[in-house]
């Protein structure tokens, strides 16, 4: 178990006296926090926190262990800064970004990763299936991949939602409508990422469109550029994480932002020493997330 990480959960819950507030302070959601704390309690063999309707109350064991936990957590921050300097001296960091990520987010991630010092950051842009393989084989140290995806054998972080839009031809009737509805797109073809790149997320998007009344043919479009080109041709629509911009021939539709949001997670090998880099990417993704 990642003891320091779980101790940080414990210390924060103790300080906030409330799971919801502790989760917010840790920039995470409540379920993984609650599960993490339970794991720690199982690992230590004693209950640390009583869960009550009002919030979280320390048990006698929790109160006794809190001061030492706090020391360890504070020291870990200093240690991680030091470890970061040592790791950077090793040189190259390989990370992967799913092609579904917008350009701006990729460069934000690279900036965050390289800010940790002299490390040179090498970015691989590929499909989720390719990136999971790359992380498993050690060709990538960590990667941001879509969810759902098969990540068996890897450590996967919490799910982060990123804004995603429908993109349609600028002269399409849905682009002029005040309240565009999905069935309006039935005269277009869906320019979608190739299914083999991640069957699970492809199927999830297709099921969402069908559930909302749109069942159309798809043609593969490997990245945003291919999607926008197909859309500008007037024959296709697509989904994109690129925010609305000045792209001739293309219009952005604000449709079902929560359902259509791109879900991503950070994956890494359990034994990879990349905690600082995961934290750096975590912060970037968290700032960019939709609520």
């Amino acid at each position, binding site marked *: 178990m990642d003891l320091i990480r779980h101790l940080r959960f414990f210390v924060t819950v103790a300080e906030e006296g409330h799971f919801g507030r502790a989760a917010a302070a840790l920039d995470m959601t409540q379920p*993984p926090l609650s599960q993490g704390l339970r794991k720690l309690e199982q690992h230590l063999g004693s209950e640390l926190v009583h869960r009550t309707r009002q919030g979280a109350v320390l048990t006698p064991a929790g109160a006794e262990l809190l001061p030492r936990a706090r020391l360890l957590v504070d020291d870990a921050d200093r240690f991680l800064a030091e470890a970061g300097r040592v790791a950077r001296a090793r040189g190259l960091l390989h990370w992967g970004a799913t092609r579904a990520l917008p350009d701006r987010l990729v460069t934000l991630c690279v900036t965050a990763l390289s800010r940790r010092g002299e490390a040179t950051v090498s970015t691989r842009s590929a499909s989720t299936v390719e990136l999971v393989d790359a992380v498993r084989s050690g060709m990538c140290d960590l990667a941001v991949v879509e969810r759902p995806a098969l990540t068996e054998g890897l450590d996967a972080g919490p799910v982060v939602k990123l804004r995603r839009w429908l993109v349609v031809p600028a002269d399409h009737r849905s682009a002029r409508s005040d309240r565009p509805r999905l069935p309006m797109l039935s005269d277009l073809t869906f320019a979608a990422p190739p299914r083999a790149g991640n*069957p699970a997320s492809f199927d999830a998007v297709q099921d969402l469109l069908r559930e909302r009344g749109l069942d159309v043919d798809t043609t593969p479009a490997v990245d945003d550029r291919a999607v926008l080109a197909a859309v500008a041709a007037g024959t296709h629509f697509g989904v994109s994480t690129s925010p609305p911009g000045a792209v001739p021939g293309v219009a952005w539709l604000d449709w079902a932002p929560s359902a259509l949001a791109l879900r991503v997670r950070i994956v890494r090998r359990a034994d990879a020493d990349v905690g600082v880099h995961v934290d750096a990417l975590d912060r970037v993704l968290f700032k960019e997330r939709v609520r």
Partner: protein
Amino acid sequence: MNGGVRRDTAVDRIRAVFADAGCTGWLHARRCADPRAAMLSVRGDERVVLASVYKLPLFLAFCAEVDAGRLDASGQLRIVPSDCTPGPTGIASFRDPVTMSRRDVAASMMTVSDNAAADVLLGEIGTTAVEELLTRLGLTRTRIVGGTADVYQRLVEETDTRTTVEAFRALTDIDAAWTVSAYDPAYTSATTPEEMTRLLEAVWSGSALSPESTAFAQQVMRAQIWPHRIASGFPHRGVAIAGKTGTIGIIRNEVAVVEFPGEYPIAVAVFTRAARADPVLPVVDAAIGEAARIAVTELRAPLPDDPAGPSSAESA
């Protein structure tokens, strides 16, 4: 590897079927009652979560108790559905108490995966009887830690919810990534695909139960109603599928014996974990059928001609 055209092996094809469906898959298949013991395995020795497939060893243990004279199969039981684990089928879905024979309760558990029936049978024979059967058959990596009631109770605790309905809603939330013990073979009832086909083989070869109980078990298992998993791979006239499914959250399983007329029966066990948390994934159900078909096709063989068989002159 050498160049040129290479035909994908059955194992490669099965792996591709699972990947295409967005699930991780484990499979083991075995020709039953054949001394040549042909087998096919895709990670078949790894531990996997049983889910409702646990009702199969429970059912066979019930049959063994009847064989040993410790239970009366036709004895009547009164069941109050509201006292039992909820479920969408069978007695678990009833509004009012019923009285049924033990063997009909067992059949309801197997044919429609009746949770209430499983509670009652587990209460009647206990996990000890199941362990005894598993030990007798040498299935050392199969473990039954309790019934559906226990699994649901733990799910409610681990998802910080109050009811089973809320727990399952939390599990299918696409924005949460739960790692509950019900998904972890180390903490819940678990087995290996290889041990499940060994268990089915023991029934089909007649070595696990008395001849009467063997016939009863086979007949009940052939009456399972679900057509969407292994059975979907064999939409042929004359084929019997004797199986038991298991489903919880991202986990979809089925173990079955596929019986083609005039051929050796083939036991096949398929266990999957889906990437998507959605409660219904027809693509994974169909992949279970397709993987089973590829495996079974690889192992099919005609029964040897029996000189004293039913087609001989004196039986006419």
